[in-house]
């Protein structure tokens, strides 16, 4: 099923033309209404009339998270405040939160792209969708909610947390679709087993998971324990929220809704635009956004884009799962480390589960990385040599994947905090800023 065949299956040439028209219109709009952008464009010697189509995209300046911070809270809004119907904000891990605004039309557009996303996961008006993303300033809950209502599905707006209740409603309401972060889905799966609920008694068939990086192994584990097909949804608050891109049933990457969000891949060091298929930083220009259009927003997400037509019939380009964000990327003794790499090592080993915490510190000017791993009850041996053997195996596997030596600390099961939202995987005690 395709929600909006006209846009999702548009010939590439026509799409490119449409993007060009929308880009041109947007640049003129921000030039007229956002002083910050007018100055930025003028500094580069660009007048709105210079932008004639998609070929001119590469001449435009970038926008970064820092620009959003500098203009906190409303400095980048392109409409007066009375036209704003909603705010969202992304959790400020460093400093102030990033604030975004939506006009009525923005909410409509967002609902549209989430409706397209849910349709990719096979969701129809016959489904009961349990939205266990947090509701509030976070875009997950309300984003999925409005999209699901647009599809006509029955929404259970339970929000995140309260896992007992989640399980109860999955059982009693017969929810068919679960939407939440992948780590919370894994936790719900764990709880299902703990509560000894018969997986055959629940009706879940699909999961729409996003808002944090997760691995293929984690997908398989969630699919197995919940008996569902798990779909990856991608988005970021600055662009719209969830629904920037989404996997179709073939799961060859996530289709980007390019008629609204124009993607580019750049070399993060030189900012040069890279061709399809090359790994680089993902950049978006949300050309149709009214409240807060951004020019070439740098996501810090590293991925590749593929343009070959998908078996599902959609012509929209597909982005791979991000290999990491440059801001959760750790540089340990000069080596780039992504927490997702540690996760896949632990998932590949049969004796461990991906409950881990990375603690980075600096001693005598040398980075040290400790990975705390919960031991699994069934693999607990009361012989030191067995446990030390396990520790050494984890250490060796991590070393061969990351290319650096780490220290492994075995900790008691259940002691690493389970997340109800985004999982906290890293504690960086180095004071590098």
């Amino acid at each position, binding site marked *: 099923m395709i929600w909006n065949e006209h846009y999702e299956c548009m010939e590439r040439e026509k799409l490119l033309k449409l993007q060009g028209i929308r880009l041109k219109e947007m640049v003129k709009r921000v030039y007229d209404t956002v002083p910050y952008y007018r100055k930025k464009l003028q500094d580069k010697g660009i007048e709105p009339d210079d932008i004639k189509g998609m070929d001119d995209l590469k001449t435009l300046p970038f926008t970064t998270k820092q620009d959003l911070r500098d203009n906190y809270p409303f400095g980048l809004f392109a409409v007066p405040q009375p036209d704003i119907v909603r705010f969202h904000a992304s959790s400020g891990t460093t400093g102030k939160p990033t604030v975004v605004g939506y006009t009525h039309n923005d909410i409509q557009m967002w609902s549209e792209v989430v409706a397209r996303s849910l349709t990719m996961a096979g969701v129809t008006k016959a489904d009961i969708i349990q939205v266990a993303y947090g509701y509030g300033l976070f875009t997950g809950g309300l984003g999925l909610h409005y999209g699901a209502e647009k599809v006509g599905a029955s929404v259970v707006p339970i929000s995140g947390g309260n896992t007992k209740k989640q399980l109860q409603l999955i059982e009693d309401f017969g929810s068919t679709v679960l939407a939440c972060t992948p780590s919370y889905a894994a936790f719900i799966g764990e709880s299902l087993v703990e509560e000894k609920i018969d997986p055959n008694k629940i009706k879940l068939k699909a999961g729409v998971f996003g808002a944090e990086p997760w691995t293929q192994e984690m997908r398989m584990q969630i699919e197995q324990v919940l008996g569902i097909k798990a779909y990856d949804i991608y988005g970021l608050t600055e662009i719209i929220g969830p629904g920037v891109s989404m996997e179709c049933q073939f799961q060859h990457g996530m289709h980007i809704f390019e008629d609204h969000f124009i993607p580019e891949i750049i070399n993060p060091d030189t900012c040069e635009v890279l061709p399809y298929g090359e790994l680089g930083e993902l950049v978006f220009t949300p050309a149709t956004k009214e409240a807060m259009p951004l020019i070439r927003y740098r996501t810090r997400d590293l991925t590749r884009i593929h343009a070959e037509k998908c078996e599902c019939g959609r012509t929209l380009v597909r982005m791979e799962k991000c290999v990491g964000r440059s801001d959760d990327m750790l540089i340990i003794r000069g080596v780039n480390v992504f927490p997702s790499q540690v996760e896949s090592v632990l998932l590949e080993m049969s004796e461990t589960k991906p409950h881990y915490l990375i603690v980075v510190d600096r001693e005598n000017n040398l980075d040290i990385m400790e990975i705390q791993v919960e*031991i699994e*009850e069934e693999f*607990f*041996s*009361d*012989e*030191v040599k067995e*446990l*030390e053997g396990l520790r050494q195996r984890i250490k060796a596997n991590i070393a061969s994947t990351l290319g650096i030596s780490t220290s492994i*600390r*075995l*900790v*008691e*099961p*259940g*002691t690493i905090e389970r997340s109800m939202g985004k999982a906290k995987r890293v504690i960086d005690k180095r004071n590098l800023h």
Partner: protein
Amino acid sequence: MIIKQLSVFLENKTGRLTELTGILADNDINISAFSIADTADYGILRMIVGRPELAAEVLKKNGFTVKITDVVGMIIPHRPGGLHKALQIISDNNVAIDYMYAFASGDCKATVVIRAESLDKIIDVLQGHKMELLKKGDVYQV
């Protein structure tokens, strides 16, 4: 002849052991023997208790990682050379020991708890040499 030992994984955290002994005390479980194998990050607590199954259950309920392990208890005379004689028998018969710990009470006997790769073999060997072994029923009195 095989007796049940309780093995518990303990992170090196202040108060963690006290938490455990408190739970056993609250459940009226007596500890007869006790040893800790320690590493930098964690310890493995091994103990012989009355009602090991119940002890394992209440500890698990309180979030501890617990395992019941089969061990052998050997009773030796509490005097110079007592342990040596017993170990000589074991090593002469090529039985590999994983770990052991011992305790002597005031009287003339001492008890050695042994975990070995082959418990059946060690029982055979020790019984063949007329060594006294702890029986299940003796455990409470150890």
